[in-house]
């Protein structure tokens, strides 16, 4: 199953058309069609689902077996000039360890052919932007994992690219750094860049963007706005946990409603009634009204299935 929602308007900055990639006998990416424009897109999927391979294809590191990849309208594998517009933060925690973070970023910025002074200026700006202006002169091998991640992001954005690919960018970052980097990634998207963030930490992706791509077994399972995806998946059952008095009586009344599929009384739970529905919006309107008719009140109404985590679990569990 693939659920796709087109983004309204916007230029296409990254495109995959019918792209497949095999590693020996393993099909890492399978017939993916994807177009991404400005803004942040979360690339989600379990380990081994093909996220990093897709990013490598977009970055021109790999050549698709079938289909084609376009970065800013050009083939990134065969037309390296277009890589001027790409910033890549790779997944591996690897650097020229004997260098300072500042020198590392400056060297890679100079590899864009920039004069020394301009590269220096851009490096300083990028290091400042990732919060590394004070620690940039430490050697890479002496840096914490969080600092290394920040430095890796700095080298990806220093040359001001319109497309930024971030493969697990928050790995190893402490909570404060995570919050900072999430804000940074959001701001990169707001500047009109096409930012693709691969991650399996779902709440962090949710904090960055509502535009997500789900991949499983190398296949595109869903793409679009989280909220619209949820609506699109009309057949998907949602659980609602209700904190009400007399849960058995309420359950019997709710079972008569057309949008309620099941109602289960849970013993020893803070929310003693679990209702299953496929229409979360109607349930949200009608259930409090029905409980009120019975003379009760809904003290708690939560849906453990309405967040990104559950949507992710639901999508990846379906074949």
């Amino acid at each position, binding site marked *: 199953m693939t659920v796709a929602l087109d983004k309204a308007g916007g230029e296409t*900055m990254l495109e995959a058309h019918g792209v497949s990639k095999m*590693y020996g006998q393993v099909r*890492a990416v399978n017939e993916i069609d994807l177009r991404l424009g*400005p803004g942040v897109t979360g690339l989600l999927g379990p380990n081994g689902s093909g996220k*990093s*391979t897709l990013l*490598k294809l977009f*970055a*021109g*590191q*790999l*050549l698709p077996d079938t289909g084609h990849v376009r970065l*800013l309208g050009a083939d990134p594998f065969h037309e*390296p*000039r*277009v*890589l*001027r*517009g*790409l910033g*890549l933060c*790779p*997944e*591996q925690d*690897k*650097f*020229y360890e*004997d260098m300072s973070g500042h020198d590392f970023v400056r*060297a*890679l910025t*100079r*590899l*864009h*052919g*920039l*004069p020394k002074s301009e590269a220096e200026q*851009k490096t300083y*700006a*990028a290091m400042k*932007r990732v919060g590394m202006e004070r620690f940039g002169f430490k050697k890479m091998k002496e840096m914490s994992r969080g600092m290394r991640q920040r430095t890796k992001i700095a*080298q990806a*954005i*220093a*040359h*001001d*690219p*319109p497309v930024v690919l971030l493969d697990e960018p928050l790995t190893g970052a402490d909570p404060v750094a995570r919050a900072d980097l999430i804000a940074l990634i959001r*701001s990169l998207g707001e*500047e*009109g*860049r096409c930012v693709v963030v691969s991650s399996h930490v779902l709440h962090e992706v949710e904090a960055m963007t509502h535009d997500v791509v789900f991949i499983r077994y190398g296949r595109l399972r869903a793409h679009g706005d989280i909220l619209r995806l949820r609506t699109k998946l009309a057949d998907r059952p949602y659980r609602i946990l209700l904190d009400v008095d007399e849960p058995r009586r309420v359950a019997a009344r709710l079972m008569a409603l057309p949008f309620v599929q099941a109602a289960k009384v849970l013993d020893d739970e803070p929310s003693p009634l679990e209702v299953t529905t496929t229409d979360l919006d109607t349930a949200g309107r009608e259930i409090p009204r029905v409980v009120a008719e019975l003379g009760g009140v809904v003290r708690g109404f939560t849906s453990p299935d309405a967040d990104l985590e559950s949507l992710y679990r639901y999508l990846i569990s379906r074949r």
Partner: protein
Amino acid sequence: MTSESPPAARLDVPPGYLPRAVAFWTGFHFKRNLRKRSFKLWAALFVVLLLLMRYAANVGPDAMGRMIVLGAVPLLALFFGAGSLREEIEDQTLTYAFTRPVGRIWTYVARVLANGLPVALLAVPAGLFIGFGIGEATAMRYGFAALLGAVAYGSFFALVGQIVKWPAWFGLAWLIFWEGGVGTVPGFFGRLTLMSHVRGVAGLPVESSEAPWSGLWEAPSLFTAALALSAVTAGALWIGAIRARKREFVVTR
């Protein structure tokens, strides 16, 4: 990094970016190579060995010239050249260079040059220094042979490093059996080795201690030998660069 500039404006490539980027990347890795412990060790070993041979063992300049040009140059070129791309693959840092607009061909060329320069830095002054013990012309030939040998062997072993899984072992076997063995054979087969052309540039013919048929061995002319070494350098660089452009380098999966 200017966060205000629109995306389209950021795609302009600065004029003259390619030579600037290649020169920078060559210098960058050359300096990194010089800072490496392995280079310092090789350099120290090389100098100590030369001093011991010259002043402790009283080895003559001709034999020392042979040792430098025919022995040290190929060995050092194997050590540095074979790692040109391989060490970046093993260190998983290749991704950074290969996702830049300079392109894989020129990144590869810069990397090979950066690994060939330390060999030249050690061998050329040593060749010149030893050669001056014989005469100015010999010194120039030793220096020239060390330089051309360093780049030819370096380019060749860089290509080998791309293709073969254990380039150091392959290279050693190549040097001993092909270069050292076939290189002393008179005629066509001998000319197929780099060693015979390095001999031609340096003016160091096969001696009777190296092969019983040394009397039959004829050195190629300086011009022919220099041309052959330059052609091998260009050919190996070209094949290696094309391979680097066409090949996928999966540093992580």
